[in-house]
């Protein structure tokens, strides 16, 4: 099927909208409420085209491609109407937007500029509502909301639904449902779907800058697996570009004293989690075992399903394991007072902020991780220092950040389980796996199931992402021995702190980059990591509990 957009012929699939064809062919038609993974809302009215035959103006998101259809997005009429709608949509945005004020323009503001739309021509009434802080992870400024509905739609689609559109006419905007039985899990999918930064991560950039400027502090940077495969998008590089080495260089340029890697923490987590799995299987206790490295999932269990708390692995998560390792084992080795260490995690995630600030992880009074920046905040930090990451030379991680390939794949849905299985196999059979790849639990499908033979034993496993799928699996959890759950579609690689836009298609490409890094590594099993071995060898028995394990408890709304 062929259609014409702006006098050029394009191939279209049956059922595809004109906007989808345009996006696929990189034709810029501005759109603020459309997202390829969400139902079409058609409310922003900016993706306008004119149909050649009839002269009718329609939204391209709702216009289905038909053979021979000819449309234009650049007639005078379309330009005029589009401009007006962009101006109406962004009335008040500039005035209230802290980012615009700093000259850090988001894609929407850039789009407004591109179309010479005034962001100050129209004045909307001031919404009296103040900025809401959600769990120290997310904040929501209703004054910036352009009522595109994407946050509401994604939150509902993922199985939570705490956001809703409220108010008629000019008052319509996203709000937080006050129902006591619905709570936010801080996954941040709303923030990665907000086109204007009205709902966004709670920024910690200033705290990090302060630490970097403090000569008395040893500031450590550690990045999560997923950040290396996505930060490039913020600087115009193709999706799925691995920038591991460039990121290390960037950290050094930003003034971090030490450059470590959350992947090392992932190797610790893998070992603890694999051991616990084996023990539970051996004792046939608290099965299935659920992963717990996703704090949004943990919050979901603690709020919605406290009855399965005992099924969560008691292993702490990678950033927490690593942070505590730096502040104990490494600090001791280096003769540094851990009080002077500041650990900054770079994560694809907002709920990691919530996790890092949790009192329960403190070791000797210190939080293992002091600050968490999302991938987007990382990009902002770099831009503020005029560092373009794509121009940097690659460099190596500092030795204490050494990691295995198993740590890298933690970022993709199925990766935590695959890493644990690589190690569990070794521990259960005393042998090494011939083939390390567990293909059946890879990929972005929301529910993946497999039966995996380890020696004499067959493990029934499931890997799920999003709470909607988690609800389904909880209902039938007795069929399984081990279940990995991540809150975000496709796992952390599609996380709420990742660059905008994030879509399933983009997530897939990013995940591929992680698996490719793993496949090229020599050391691909957590238990082979010499740094981790050294850490365990020097870990006094008396410290194991407080550094390696955690507990859970029933939570109330916003707790």
């Amino acid at each position: 099927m062929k259609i014409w957009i702006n006098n050029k012929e394009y191939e279209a699939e049956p059922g595809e909208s004109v906007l989808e064809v345009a996006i696929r062919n990189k034709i810029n038609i501005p759109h603020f409420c459309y997202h390829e993974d969400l139902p079409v809302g058609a409310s922003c009215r900016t993706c306008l085209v004119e149909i050649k035959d009839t002269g009718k103006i329609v939204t391209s998101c709702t216009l289905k491609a038909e053979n021979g259809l000819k449309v234009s997005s650049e007639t005078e009429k379309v330009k005029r109407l589009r401009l007006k709608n962009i101006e109406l949509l962004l009335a008040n945005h500039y005035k209230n937007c802290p980012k615009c004020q700093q000259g850090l323009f988001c894609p929407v503001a850039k789009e407004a500029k591109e179309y010479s739309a005034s962001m100050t021509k129209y004045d909307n009434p001031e919404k009296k509502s103040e900025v809401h802080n959600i769990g120290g992870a997310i904040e929501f400024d209703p004054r910036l909301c352009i009522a595109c509905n994407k946050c509401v739609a994604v939150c509902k689609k993922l199985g939570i639904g705490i956001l809703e559109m409220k108010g008629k006419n000019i008052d319509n905007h996203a709000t937080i449902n006050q129902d006591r039985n619905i709570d936010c899990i801080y996954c941040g999918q709303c923030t990665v779907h907000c086109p204007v930064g009205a709902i966004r991560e709670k920024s910690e950039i200033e705290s990090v800058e302060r630490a970097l400027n403090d000569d008395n502090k040893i500031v450590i940077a550690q990045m999560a697996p997923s950040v290396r495969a996505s930060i490039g998008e913020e600087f115009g590089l193709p999706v799925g570009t691995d920038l591991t080495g460039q990121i290390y260089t960037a950290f050094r340029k930003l003034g971090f004293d030490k450059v470590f890697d959350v992947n090392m923490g992932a190797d610790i987590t893998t070992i603890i989690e694999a051991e616990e799995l084996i023990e539970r299987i051996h004792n046939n206790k608290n099965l299935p075992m659920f992963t717990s490295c996703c704090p949004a999932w943990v919050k979901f269990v603690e709020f919605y399903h406290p009855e399965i708390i005992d099924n969560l692995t008691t292993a702490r998560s990678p950033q927490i394991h690593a942070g505590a390792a730096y502040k104990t084992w490494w600090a001791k080795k280096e003769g540094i007072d851990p009080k002077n260490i500041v650990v900054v995690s770079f994560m694809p995630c907002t709920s990691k902020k919530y996790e890092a600030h949790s009192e329960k992880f403190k070791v000797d009074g210190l939080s293992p991780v002091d600050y968490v920046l999302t991938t987007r905040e990382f990009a902002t930090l770099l831009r503020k220092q005029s560092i373009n990451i794509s121009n940097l030379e690659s460099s190596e991680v500092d030795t204490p950040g050494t990691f295995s390939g198993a740590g890298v794949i933690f970022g993709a849905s199925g990766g935590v389980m695959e890493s644990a299985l690589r190690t569990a196999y070794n521990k259960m059979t005393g042998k090494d796996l011939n083939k390390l790849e567990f293909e059946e639990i890879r990929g972005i499908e929301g529910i993946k199931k497999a039966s995996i033979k380890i020696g004499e034993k067959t493990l029934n496993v499931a890997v799920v992402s999003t709470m909607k799928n988690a609800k389904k699996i909880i209902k039938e959890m007795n069929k399984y021995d081990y279940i990995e759950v991540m809150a975000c579609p496709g796992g952390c690689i599609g996380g709420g702190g990742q660059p905008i836009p994030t879509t399933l298609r983009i997530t897939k490409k990013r995940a591929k980059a992680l698996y490719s890094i793993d496949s090229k590594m020599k050391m691909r099993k957590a238990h082979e990591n010499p740094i981790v071995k050294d850490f365990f060898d020097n870990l006094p028995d008396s410290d194991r509990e407080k550094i390696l394990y955690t507990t859970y408890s029933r939570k109330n709304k916003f707790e």
Partner: protein
Amino acid sequence: MNIIEKIERAGLVGRGGAEYPTAKKWQDVRLAPGDQKYVICNASEGEIGLFKDIFILENYTEQVVRGMILALEYLETKDAFFNINEKYYHQIESKILKIIDKYNQQGYNIQFFIEEPSYIGGEETALLNAIEGKRTEPRLKPPYPSIEGLYGKPTLINNVETFYNVACVDDNTFSATRFFSISGKIKNPGVYQLPDDITIEKLLKETNNLPDFDFFVQIGGSASGLVLNKEQIKEQKMIGAGGLEVYDKTTPPKDVVLRWLKFYQKESCGKCTPCRVGTYQLYNLVKNNSEIPWSEVFEILETLKETSFCALGKSVEVPITSYYKNVL
């Protein structure tokens, strides 16, 4: 003759404003696949200048309900909703409940959905959302309610007057009349039932309402209706939902326009940009200037007309443009 033939022969069209052929609408729902179907009587009547639905409900309650029963029979279903404006409900509650109870005892299931009075609440798909407990805002069409309506099931939605007409058609008492809501600066406001092809001038004469001062009118409804001058009403017949309002031509234009804009900016559901923000900006633009800044007003009006999501937003320009062209 069966009911659908009778409706077709009588040439019934929707009386909520859209004037869609009633027989066609009924057949669409009948032919739509699905074991569960719904009938909805729309008594929202949220536009200013319209009050004929409540008149019919008060005076012909029995006929309206019987029209619904005929639809239920035709569609072989029992389930219906009465989407009713809260104000109206209190006015007719005691009368209508008795009739509906009678039918419900015979196995029908007619329920009330009492809505907060609003303009958008009368839009067919917005009304479906409201009954389903969702936000009162229009849905994307297609799918049309006749195929995927209430809870995704084929649904017939007709206005109060249409159901009344259906009952008359069935009784063979139907004559080609309609109900007119007449208001404004006149002596005898009220609802009149007269031939549907009467000209507006004649309508004013026959109801003893022809002004003796310089005037203009708005027909269809007093928000979305068309504005016409004295000359134009000689030929013009009624349109839309049958409202007729008479205005004094000496009323300051700002007052005339502001009344429409005040209504629209309040009634916009808030879903789409041009209507949500556009009507608000228009209202302020007119309110805060001593003279109406026409070119700026028309810029926004064009955007509303061409790009609004639903008919509410698209219609904002109708009264204002026609007022400007025909009266000023």
